[in-house]
């Protein structure tokens, strides 16, 4: 931009909410944020925004921001100096690690914050304490995608860009309500619809996305595998599989074929009429280019990884992968859920998915990070949810950057209880949230509008985040706080001056992103990784000609259907599904501070079918009580046909809401808790 002294400043940056990575302009005057204006130059969203993106500036400078480090003394939090707070953290973490070993510490970072923060935190955990107990909240959204897609294709990321749906001949949205959860990816579906591309939405609920569909397939909650297997049975039975593709590029077909033999008619499991299944199977197999877009409807179950692999199976069986218009695309929930994983804030890999178990990888990192040979651990660290479950017994101290576990993790009461068992807890955040009261030290970080950095969107595009205004009070860049901790401990390699220094530190040890320099992502086209060299243009589409797996093959798996961990029974006769609504983001720490969003959805609600409401005598918008084996929640009833009888839907955003009810049972492969499915009962609230 021309060097002009303008009193009104536009800062082109990336939206802090979902994984689409929309560009927007923050408008400021001096250090005051005034608003958001469209960034029409961005190829991702062309200036268009959803209700959250358009108001994302509002929460930044509202009262309630953390401005000083706080230390808990007795029952009260007192303001402290940075030195005091950081020394206390170092003292406790060092002592606990000396006494109980590296597994006694847990580090958790947010997928909402920039890559640079995520890289910094995992580096500090590994260098300072030789622990792999570092994870991010992808664990409870797309952990199964990383696990499942890695097994199927050799890479855990989305295969094709959002806009590429316009090159498809058939779009399948499976367990994705993009219109609400990823609105500007939803816009691509709207564009596709206008262009006449057929859309099939597979969802138990008539979501706003399902309303766009040419064909909406309602199935019983959490029966994905049965439905996919049945489709594949008919594809094979009718000889519609892509035989050449299977032969040339895949393995595991026989295993798959054998397994799906038993699913010729699985209607009694998934509830979809056989003819519909056959028709859908033919439509998918016969389409020249068919893409599957899925989301948390697939992943947040104890069968999450297998559900993801079932999507992989479908695409491999029909050769729908590795070119424009096809693919298997998870819509990543948070702005930087891709990035947080890419940065190595993960218990078994360094940045760029370099496995900690491989001695060469450890040796390389030890050298780059000025560590003693053989000092980095090779063991699989404890995951986010396991760390919580292990509080007290194994994990004694925890460092939480930008998360609100007592609201966003499953079974809030359990999380609170476990936090109480910790000897020492650090929360680093921008606002005081519900989890802070369990902390010993609370540190003020900075939000997206106050720092430079990068977010990696769901299409593996590394988008720039640019600073528009200073953070409040004594708040600091989050990577800067980690850098201070490292330096105070006398560690080398933490002397970053800018976000770009952190990024370049990461690049130097991450082959897949070495070519993604700040210079190259100055324009909003940015770069899709992998991008191994400076000259490399990036890779919008994965698996072209060859899969990312070591043997270059895609793998099909025979996968049996398993019911959810807890299903409706006589005592808890309703199935509760959870999800998002367009007006809020996660625990509402930011969105509820925006007047327009608060106006639209100020309170928890639950969708209930008209027949059920009639049976229970529940009126529209009446407050009702929903109870599971773990807790209860009060919510406004939205009586609707959008959910089937005996199925409820509650948004995930409210404290004492959905996560009072959700189940902590884990997907054995990815440790994903079953947030999308549990059994509940419904009661009228009797007037006192």
């Amino acid at each position: 931009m021309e060097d002009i002294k303008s009193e009104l400043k536009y800062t082109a940056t990336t939206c802090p909410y979902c994984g689409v990575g929309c560009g927007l302009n923050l408008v400021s005057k001096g250090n005051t944020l005034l608003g958001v204006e469209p960034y029409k130059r961005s190829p991702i969203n062309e200036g268009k925004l959803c209700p959250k993106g358009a108001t994302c500036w509002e929460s930044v400078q509202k009262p309630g921001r953390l401005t000083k480090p706080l230390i808990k003394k007795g029952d009260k939090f007192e303001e402290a100096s940075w030195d005091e707070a950081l020394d206390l953290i170092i003292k406790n973490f060092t002592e606990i690690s000396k006494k109980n070993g590296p597994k006694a510490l847990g580090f958790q970072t947010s997928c909402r914050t920039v890559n640079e923060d995520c890289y910094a935190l995992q580096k500090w955990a590994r260098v300072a304490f030789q622990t792999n107990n570092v994870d991010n909240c992808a664990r409870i959204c797309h952990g199964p995608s990383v696990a499942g897609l890695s097994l199927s294709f050799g890479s855990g990321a989305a295969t094709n860009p959002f806009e590429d749906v316009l090159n498809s001949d058939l779009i399948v949205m499976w367990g994705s309500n993009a219109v609400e959860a990823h609105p500007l990816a939803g816009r691509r579906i709207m564009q596709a619809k206008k262009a006449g591309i057929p859309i099939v939405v597979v969802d138990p609920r008539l979501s706003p996305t399902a309303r766009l569909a040419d064909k909406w397939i309602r199935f019983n909650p959490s029966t994905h595998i049965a439905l996919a297997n049945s489709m594949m049975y008919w594809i094979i039975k009718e000889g519609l599989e892509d035989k050449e593709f299977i032969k040339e590029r895949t393995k595991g077909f026989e295993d798959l074929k054998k397994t799906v033999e038993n699913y010729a008619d699985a209607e009694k499991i998934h509830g979809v009429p056989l003819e519909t299944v056959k028709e859908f199977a033919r439509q998918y197999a016969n389409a020249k280019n068919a893409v599957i877009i899925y989301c948390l409807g697939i992943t947040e179950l104890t069968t999450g990884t297998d559900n993801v692999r079932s999507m992989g199976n479908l695409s491999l069986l029909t050769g729908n992968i590795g070119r424009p218009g096809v693919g298997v695309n998870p819509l990543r929930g948070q702005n930087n859920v891709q990035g947080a994983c890419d940065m190595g804030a993960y218990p078994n890999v360094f940045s760029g998915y370099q496995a900690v178990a491989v001695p060469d990888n450890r040796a390389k990192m030890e050298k780059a990070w000025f560590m003693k040979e053989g000092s980095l651990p090779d063991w699989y660290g404890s995951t986010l949810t396991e760390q919580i479950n292990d509080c007290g017994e194994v994990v004694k101290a925890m460092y939480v950057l930008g998360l609100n576990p007592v609201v966003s993790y499953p079974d809030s009461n359990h999380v609170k209880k476990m936090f109480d068992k910790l000897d020492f807890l650090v929360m680093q955040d921008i606002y005081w949230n519900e989890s802070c009261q369990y902390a010993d030290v609370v540190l003020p970080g900075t939000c997206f509008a106050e720092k430079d950095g990068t977010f990696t969107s769901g299409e593996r595009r590394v988008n720039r985040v640019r600073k528009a205004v200073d953070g409040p009070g004594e708040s600091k860049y989050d990577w800067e706080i980690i850098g201070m901790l490292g330096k105070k401990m006398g560690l080398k390699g933490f002397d970053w001056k800018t976000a770009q220094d952190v990024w370049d530190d990461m690049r130097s040890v991450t082959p897949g992103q070495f070519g993604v320099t700040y210079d190259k992502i100055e324009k909003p086209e940015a770069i899709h990784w992998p991008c191994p060299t400076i000259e490399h243009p990036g890779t919008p589409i994965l698996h072209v000609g060859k899969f990312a797996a070591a043997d270059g093959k895609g793998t099909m798996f025979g996968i049996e259907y398993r019911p959810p961990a807890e299903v409706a029974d006589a005592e808890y006769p309703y199935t509760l599904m959870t999800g998002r609504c367009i007006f809020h983001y996660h625990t509402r720490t930011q969105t509820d501070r925006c007047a327009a969003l608060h106006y639209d959805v100020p309170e928890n609600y639950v969708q209930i079918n008209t027949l059920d409401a009639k049976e229970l005598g529940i009126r529209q918008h009446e407050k009702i009580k929903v109870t599971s084996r773990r807790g209860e929640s009060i919510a406004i009833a939205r009586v609707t046909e959008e959910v089937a009888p005996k199925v409820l839907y509650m948004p995930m955003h409210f404290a004492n809401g959905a996560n009072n009810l959700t189940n902590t049972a884990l997907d054995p492969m990815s440790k994903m808790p079953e947030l999308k499915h549990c059994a509940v009962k419904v009661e009228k609230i009797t007037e006192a």
Partner: protein
Amino acid sequence: MTKKGDMLYAWTSDAEIQKKAELGGAVTAIWKYALESKAVDAVFAVTKGVDLYDAVPVLIRDPKDLAKTAGSLHCGTLLMAKLVKKFLDGANNMKIGVTVKGCDAMAFLELAKRKQINLDNIVMIGVNCGGSVSPVVARKMIKEKYDVDPEKVHKEEIDKGQFIIEYEGGHKGISVDELEEAGFGRRSNCRRCKMKIPRQADLACGNWGVIGPKAGKATFVEVCSEKGAKLVDGAIKSGVLATEAANPKGLEIRGKVEGAMFKLGDKWRKHDFEALGEGKERLKKIMSETARCIKCYQCIDVCPICYCVDCTTRNPAYVPPGELPVNFMFHLIRYAHIADSCVNCGQCEEVCAAEIPNALFMHAQQQELEKMFGHVPGTTMELPLMAYVEEKEERLRLHNTGSDMIYENVFKPVPKK
């Protein structure tokens, strides 16, 4: 002495401006004079952001910075008036000079009617505009239709019906008609636009009609107000601007260009409005398209007619909050409140995340209302019904009187104490 109605050729006599100026640099010269003479406190202009496809507004006080602003960016689709309302206190606290396209000029008038911009503190230099192209569309168009890497383009212009690019190794022009046939080209509202020479501004400038020895070296200036005349005189006196009377033949040519543009606008109006159908068919189309709305409120946010703090779309009696799909009443409220004054600036359509052709719907309705009532928005300060009351004052009156009759003070003015 220059006076309202004068038709001039103008060019800068300032050596610095001459170096960078296009078409004689008259506009830059006048702004330089305006800043130096304190005729304005600041100039609200547009500069290139990350490249020439990215128009960024800047508020300039230092005349030296004027040279760094962009000439015309046809891929810039900003609406300056709403930004003045939102971010510059509606020009209530400073005198601002703004270079405006037709839609900007119309928007300034509409916001001023509603007391949201203080027009006394605004100086407008209008520039002829044949339409603009959304940046992402422009880049795709250059890649696909011109077979040129959009990164290599360093200049673009629309001239003689062609969109012309200059790039490393050459230049290429393709007729706008051909581009629009292929689904590229100008925004659809621009295609329908008939505000080509913004005479609501204090000066209306452009290159249409500059012929003879001055062709390419001077700007055509139509003096549209006393304020404009004073500005030109001052600039001449201060030695930054020189003028001569426009060649009458040039004036005629300018009229012809404008006339041709009107014809093209009419053609597109016919095309777009007929495709909407009439009566129930049209309603059905509007209902089915708006059913995709995700309630981002951006059409309201960018609209130069909307300014209410307590927007009626947030009245739960009309539009149930927190629900998708959004109740159709949301859109009906917009039509009822805006359609009589829609200036077809296209912003509501460009920012719509749900691909709803908002501007088309609103413009179509505005045209129907214009036929019925003869009110033409954006051209004079004549008030439409909805602009008779200012929201805050009116809400206060309703609150104090307990009345819900918004218009009773229009038809039955409340006697002043």
